[in-house]
């Protein structure tokens, strides 16, 4: 394939990917950065990485898997970079489970605040657990999550089960306190 044909295919693929998965990518990015201005920068970085990476896309996996992988890998790199600069501490699923009852319960009254609560939980997790939770919330099955993360389906199933319990306990705690 000539260079110009390759570039055209890259551009077309990017446009297709941005159209089909733009909303999902924006939600993933929100899961990796809360600050509005920084989120816009990260979104731009993801789109740039996606466009560049598509030069090497030869159908190794589905376009959706490719887009999700790029978005999460750029997001995870962003989190690592931010942690180095501010020494923010992430927790793994085990620690997050322990802290369910310890954290101050704020009375939340509507679904928007439920979302805020889920977002807070997501942002407290380590990158791998965060990726799993974001993919779970996008309603992906264990096989798709496994293809994106590289974890075995069994490992994914175990972790997703724990994510579900964690979310249930967080949100039920909220219901009790309200």
């Amino acid at each position: 394939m000539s260079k110009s044909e390759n570039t055209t295919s890259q551009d077309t693929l990017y446009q297709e990917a941005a159209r089909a998965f733009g909303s999902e990518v924006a939600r993933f990015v929100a899961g990796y950065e809360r600050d509005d201005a920084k989120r816009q920068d990260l979104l731009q970085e993801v789109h740039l990485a996606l466009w560049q990476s598509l030069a090497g896309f030869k159908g190794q996996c589905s376009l959706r898997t490719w887009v999700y992988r790029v978005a999460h890998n750029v997001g995870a790199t962003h989190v690592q970079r931010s942690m180095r600069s501010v020494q923010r501490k992430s927790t793994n699923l085990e620690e997050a489970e322990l802290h369910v009852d310890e954290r101050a319960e704020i009375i939340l009254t509507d679904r928007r605040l439920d979302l805020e609560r889920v977002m807070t939980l997501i942002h407290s997790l380590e990158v791998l657990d965060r990726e799993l939770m974001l993919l779970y919330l996008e309603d992906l099955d264990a096989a798709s999550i496994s293809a994106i993360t590289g974890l075995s389906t069994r490992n994914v199933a175990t972790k997703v089960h724990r994510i579900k319990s964690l979310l249930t306990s967080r949100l039920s705690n909220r219901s009790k306190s309200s």
Partner: protein
Amino acid sequence: MNDQELKSLWQSQTLMTGSYSLEQLQRDAAAFRRETVRDHTGGMISGAMVALIFGFYAWVLPVTLMRIGCGLVVLGSFFFMYQLQRRGSIRKRPPEALALPFITYFREDLARQRDALRSVLWYIGPTLLGMSVFVWGMAQPNPADFPWQVTSVFIIPVVVVVAMHFFAAHRLQRKIDQLDQLNESAEI
């Protein structure tokens, strides 16, 4: 709230999806390349300046040992520039590497950072050797009278920097081991 309600709540978020034209992406890519070249050039200029200054000293200083020390520092700075060039080109990953499964991508990234940290001795070592010979030359002809405590000004920062690099590399290795364990436990 059940599973499905939670997922639909998550998916119903109204977020700006961003709209990036191909021209803008090309501009961003070019800007990123320029930034990388600028960072790389900064390191090369520093190395060249050290080589120039110590090359001058090697030319004008009267004591042979000091001149040898300066010559070694010059060689060290050339070695530093060579390493910078070599490692810089190794560090470049193809853009499609970003589409690797997370575990593979993350492990490779951590290993790359670990290796870069561990290579600190290759960067500092040759220059340190030159500086040692230089100081030994300064201490002549009566090394016993030389105020050796002055050398702690160089030695302490070097020891601290090397220790910090190795400590950080050790932490990264622990993360890599955790990732490997995660995959091993899945295979059992």
